[in-house]
């Protein structure tokens, strides 16, 4: 009996379900219209985002093309050679190290020296098998730096050692003067700007520790804590300038 009625039941069920759905559409018409409007707005928003992303991708591609043409000094394009620190300056007034790589290894004066953490300094003298490196903490180790603001625009400045030490175990910090109007904030990353022809672009240097207004009122001084722990440094990489 059940087997005989089964097709009929199925047919009725499908018809009633259809009618129920139609009634549901009719009763929820207002709600459906609202959802439709929301979805349309969402589509518009996603379309706008999609266009923006496409523009950014295109800008990135254009940048890469320009970089190839202008040979932008990016660290990632360059050859490096590992070196061990064999000596440090005996005095308290200079921040230099001696490494066990020299002209025999292709090291030349003004080669940039880095670690995985960030910028260390530059080569100032070379022998066959050693090289002297002036650290960015030295007064002669000035670097052209850049802070990338939240809107993407860069703030440029020259980083100089201030020879200011904190308590036991701490190391000297760097200072950078920036215009008062620029919105440099504590915690922001400072990178090399690539300007000056010695240091390649975008090597991390340190983070902004604090920003104070100078006495004149036109500039602010940003104190920067280097990322590299110079007192604990054992190995470094020398970036070959021949790769630039």
């Amino acid at each position: 009996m059940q087997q005989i009625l089964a097709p009929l039941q199925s047919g009725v069920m499908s018809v009633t379900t259809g009618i129920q759905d139609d009634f549901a559409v009719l009763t929820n018409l207002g709600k459906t219209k609202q959802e439709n409007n929301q979805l349309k707005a969402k589509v518009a928003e996603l379309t706008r985002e999609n266009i923006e992303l496409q523009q950014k991708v295109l800008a990135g591609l254009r940048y890469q093309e320009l970089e190839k043409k202008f040979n932008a000094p990016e660290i990632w394009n360059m050859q490096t050679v590992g070196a061990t620190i064999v000596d440090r300056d005996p005095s308290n007034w200079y921040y230099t190290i001696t490494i066990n790589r020299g002209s025999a290894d292709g090291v030349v004066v003004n080669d940039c020296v880095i670690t995985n953490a960030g910028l260390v300094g530059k080569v100032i003298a070379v022998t066959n098998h050693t090289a002297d490196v002036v650290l960015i903490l030295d007064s002669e180790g000035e670097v052209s730096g850049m802070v990338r603001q939240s809107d993407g625009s860069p703030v440029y400045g020259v980083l100089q050692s201030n020879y200011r030490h904190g308590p036991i175990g701490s190391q000297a910090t760097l200072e950078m003067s920036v215009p008062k109007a620029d919105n440099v904030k504590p915690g922001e990353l400072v990178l090399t700007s690539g300007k000056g022809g010695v240091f390649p672009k975008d090597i991390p240097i340190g983070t902004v520790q604090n920003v104070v207004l100078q006495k004149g009122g036109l500039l602010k001084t940003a104190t920067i804590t280097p990322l590299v722990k110079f007192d604990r440094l054992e190995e470094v990489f020398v970036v070959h300038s021949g790769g630039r």
Partner: protein
Amino acid sequence: MRYLGIAVLYVLGLVLQSTLFNFLKVGGVKPDLVLLLVIYFAFTNGPVKGALLGLGLGLLEDFFIGYYFGMNALALLVSGFVAGWFETVMYKENIFIALFVTFLASLIAQTVTIFCGITAGLGWQLPDSWNTALKIAIYNVCLVPFTYPFFHKAITKGWLRYRPRHEE
């Protein structure tokens, strides 16, 4: 023998400053062991010998460092002369006087260095440099109780004692 001993102490001081004391920095500074050697020698041998030793060891240190030649030579010459002057007017056996002379001569040596550095166009800021100089002088003074008695004993009775040629 005496000057060989000074040479050994000098090399030892320079090596320790370049290596071990980088890990024993206090407030970002390490002691100046070569300066201590010059001060001790001057305080026990007078201003002329002290100044000459300071000049000689300073020149060697300038060669070792390799730039701003003459800066250490001048600083050690002046501090050697000042520490040596105290030899003529004060008791060199007294550890407290040795502490005072070490502090003063260290401060003078660092002052000369700062003056030379700023004159040479190095970007040293005066207040921070003074702070560093003061810390170096204090660190040097802290080492005096552990080093000066041995040096004084060696230079008056021991292996650093001056021996006329007929005694050798």
